[in-house]
């Protein structure tokens, strides 16, 4: 079970005196779907950056399964231990969807043939039929693209999934579909799924909802 733990995490931009994150301490448990909600400018993106290993906190510590993030290679951390899903999917436009999904695996050293095989299975698992595997992302619907994005996230083997408004571009049916997937991964596979959202429906089905306000995270 993956676990992300934050201890007194503060963040301050260079050349700015004001703290964007003000001593956040919290626990994101594996097996749970957590939602972070909050108004624009409250610090959600900054927190997500730190959780994704794209930035380091100015103060405080972030632990993943007990490992201090500051001691880890952040590139390797992003490659192996954390994955992200975005509202606008962010797939490589010039790679087929199969290549998009196999890319992190190949990048991680898994032989091409094996990576493609697994990518195919992942895509099938997420309901993307084989005939679509050789298509480019632009030829898929939004829901399908998001499922490809989830497949790519899963392909990294990371147990922490960070989702930034994953359903923001989707209709209700697809929203439910995606949420169902994320929930299942959390509940059945023990993934630690953290969803940053404005959507109350998303928040309502989450196991835990955190509120972000002026750099402070509260339940």
């Amino acid at each position, binding site marked *: 079970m993956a676990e992300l733990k934050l201890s007194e995490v503060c963040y301050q931009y260079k050349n700015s005196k004001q703290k964007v994150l003000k001593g956040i301490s919290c626990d994101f448990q594996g097996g749970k779907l957590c939602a972070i909600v909050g108004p624009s400018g409250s610090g959600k993106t900054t927190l997500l950056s730190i959780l994704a290993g794209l*930035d380091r906190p100015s103060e405080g510590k972030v632990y993943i399964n007990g490992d201090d993030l500051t001691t880890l290679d952040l590139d390797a*951390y992003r*490659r192996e231990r954390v994955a992200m899903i975005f509202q606008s999917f962010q797939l490589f436009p010039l790679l087929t969807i199969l290549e998009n999904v196999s890319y992190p695996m190949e990048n991680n050293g898994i032989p091409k043939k094996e990576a*493609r095989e*697994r990518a195919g299975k992942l895509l099938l698992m997420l309901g993307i039929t084989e005939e679509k595997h*050789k298509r480019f992302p*632009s030829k898929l619907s*939004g829901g399908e693209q998001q499922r490809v994005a989830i497949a790519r996230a899963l392909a990294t083997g990371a147990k922490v999934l960070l989702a930034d408004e994953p359903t923001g571009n989707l209709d209700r049916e697809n929203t439910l579909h995606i949420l169902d997937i994320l929930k299942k991964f959390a509940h059945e596979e023990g993934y630690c799924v953290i969803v940053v959202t404005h959507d109350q429906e998303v928040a309502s089905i989450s196991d835990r909802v955190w509120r972000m306000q002026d750099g402070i995270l509260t339940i």
Partner: protein
Amino acid sequence: MRRNPFLKAVLRKPFRSLLMLLLMGAITYGITSHVIEYVIVLQMTNQLEKYYRPIGTLKSENNDVTRGRELVSRSPYIEFEDIGRIPQGILQGLYNADVSNSFNRAKAEEIKLESYVSDIVFYGVLQEKKYVVVGSGQYHFVFKINKMEVGYPDYMPEDNLIHVKYQPETEGELKEEYDSLIVGEQYLVRAYYDENSPQSMNRSGQIIEGKVGKWFLLDKLTDDNLYFYPVKEGDTVDYSNRKLAGLKEHLEIVDQNQRSVEVYGTKDMSLMPPFQESSRTYYLVDGRWLDREDDLNKKNVCVVHSFFAEWRGLSLGDKINIELRDMGGGYNGYIIPLFPEIWDNWKNYKTVEKEFEIVGIYDSVYLDQSTARGNRIFVPDSCIPENFLLQTREMIDSSTYSFVLKSAKDLQAFLIENKSKLEGMGITLSFIDNDADDFGIASKALKKSTQMSVAIFSATFLPVMVIVAFFYLSQRRREFAVARAMGISRRLAIYQVGVAGIWIGFPGIIIGGIVARYKTLKEAKDLFKDFVMPGVIEYNSSLRIFWLLLMLLLFSLFVILIFLGSCYIANQSVFDLLQGQKLNIGRKNMRQINREKVDLQPDPSIKTDEKAEEIFYFSDSYKEFMVESIGKTNASRIYKLTTSIEYLYRHMFRSYGKILLMFIITLGFITTYSWFDIAIEKNKVEIDQLYNSIVIKGEILNEGRLDFSKGGGFINPKVVNNLQDTGLINESYLEKTAQVNALTGFNPHKTYDRDAFIPGVAVVSFNEWNRFFIETGAGITVEFMKGYDEKVFMESESDAVEAIVPERFMKKLGKRWGDIVYLIIKEEYTPCRIIGSYEGELSNAVLSDTIIMSEYHMQQLMGNNFFYVVTKFKFNPAKNKELIQKEKELKEMVSSAKFGSIEPKLMIWDAELQQVIEPMERNLSFLKIIYPIAVIVFTLIGGVLNFLIISFRAKEAAIMRILGGAKRKVRILFTVEQGIIYLTGMILGAILIAMLQGGISPNIQMNILLYVTGCTLGSILGSIFVTNKIPLELLQVKE
């Protein structure tokens, strides 16, 4: 006014917009400068071709070519005929420069050619009178001038004291008048300038002692032998007085003549035969010749002689007023008694006054020149009233007639059409060599070189423009979709995208265009500097229009690209564009993808039916498989590398449009370097070949009449020796001369006999027999005594001096061939054998009393006491470069070796070299200048393009970073991908060059390296730029 979001977007991304603007500037500069250069070359060569057209002349024994002209004028090949009209012109407020007059007064009066311009008529108070016993005696008078009635102002002494002398021809002549003169009384006196007096002006018209003309010869005021007419001080004479009959009329004529010039009306002076360099007659000192345009546009411009200009202090741009008089047939423009109708009725001829601007100053190479040489002024024929000198069209004189063919191509046809017919009329047709062939070679080379540069630069720069348009549209794609989503019509959105694009295209095009125009015009002026121009070639006006059209074309092209791109975007789904995912993957790419066989073996338990899209399913085994395997493989670095390479490969081949453009640009740039290299090398070789094949001729000119006492016309032997010592001369034709005191037919012991004694005889020798009869000996025929011919004569080294003497000498001395005559040199008598005689006159007045000797005998007789009269050289073609470099130095060396105040002049007839090689050299230096500029511009373009291409992949970099790609790796990946593109282009370009040139010169290697460095730097900076962006900000949908 509608708000244009695209424009705002352009302005708010100043860095990128500026880069694109600079690229547009560079593209415009590159294309425009070469196209303009080509157009200028075309314009100039076309215009110059007119100048280099065949110029024909007609000659007949009596100079009347009227019938020939009638025939020729009907020819369809004729562009225009030039029949010179030479009316008299009276300078207004200005005197002519014939201050020394040219004739001996008595001689001139005898043949009625006297113009009396050297007359001075004044009121003078007698200061002194005396009779000097010199020879047969002379009267000397000194007057203080109170007022000049007529006379050049140059004659007026500073102290107003004028010396007048009179040489009586018979005893007692003027004695009565002399005795009656009272010192202190005022008289009206007439005298004339004595060119042979000391303290006067020399033969070239230069005043020896400032503005002083002290010595004059007395002349009678009227035909009644009136020499001095007493006038009380303060009074003036009454010309109606019978004693002074005819004086007033005479003074009027003198005044007219002192301001007279010959105004030569021509349709195109630049095409007049004597003004072609090949005629070795006239040359331009400053400004330009008159041309066809001057005549067609009736421009009141003129070209004057340098002597007149210098003497009267005139220069280019000055204006002179001339009263044109419908009066021809004069002599130097003068009213002379030879033409009684003019002499008596000159006032009755029609006149018209015009103001002319001096646009050119010319000089001639004639040796024997009087001050009257400045009397001819050339003006466009159209400036002379049409009804003036109509008689010149009735009887066409060969000296004033020439014609110009429409094109050099028509020459043969014209000859076939007319030559034999003209010969039947006794008229000789000839064409002037005006270096048309040389011009053809130079213009062809220039045209070819500029054509190539236009082709290469256009092919290279236009793809860059496509890329700029592509970049611009890529940036505007999403904004376009948003605008469309907001309800902005497709048409308006396309319009607004276009308008915003103008902000990048227009300033760039204007800046690049202005720089290119300014720079290219400057270069072109230099390029054509040495062609003999028929006038000021106005290429600016028409070029300005062309330049504007070119700018418009480039701008239109950019707008069309933007428009087509916008239309393409407009055809895409707005939603897809908003999603930011829409990219067209062509059929070609789909085929490529389909070829990639991915061996997928789906779990048979997984549903793949239609409903599968809605169901996700985990099987236990699969879950285990995923959990166990993923992220646990330790792949080797090589494997990771191949993965990256595969990614690059896919990316590159799926965005082939961009890649292909970049590839073409690189290939274009590299081959352009090669073109520069080849062009420069080829030019060098051609120039060297031409340098070694053109024979430049030269000669030393010395103004003034040949005169042993004054040194006029002679050339110092030292200067010839110095010239020959430079090693630049291959061949010389030299005519030497020296003077012996006398030639006599009697031996020294015989009694002096005046009739058998010829004083002051000149001796001439030369080093080429045949050449002599083209030069000084053109007017004589030689006959040798038996056993002699020119070969024997030239090579004879006999002890006895041998000579060819004039027939008249033989008659005077009563000698025959083979007889001995004696040359008296410093009282020494040297026997000389007559081995031949000649009839006719040598071409120089003083040399007419001349005997001809071989060089060997001249040396034996005179040693080093000789001068040169004709010195003509052929320079060593192998040293032409050195000659051009030393030209000024050589000219200074020659002009410093002057006799008295006369400066000899070295003429180097190098127009052929200048007109062929110098434009090519300038073209070469132009290439040499533009080459490094092109290298820098290409390097900058390469850098900027690579930077822009990578900067457009920021989102891709962000995804990679999110997926765990290290910044360094992403940077390397992007840099390598760009590197593969430009390096492939470079390698192919290099192979192409190697195939064409048989290798790659170090110069090209260096330039390629520079270009690759620019591209690499651009790629690295672009990669750093995109990886330094915060990934989440790029990937998130902003709230």
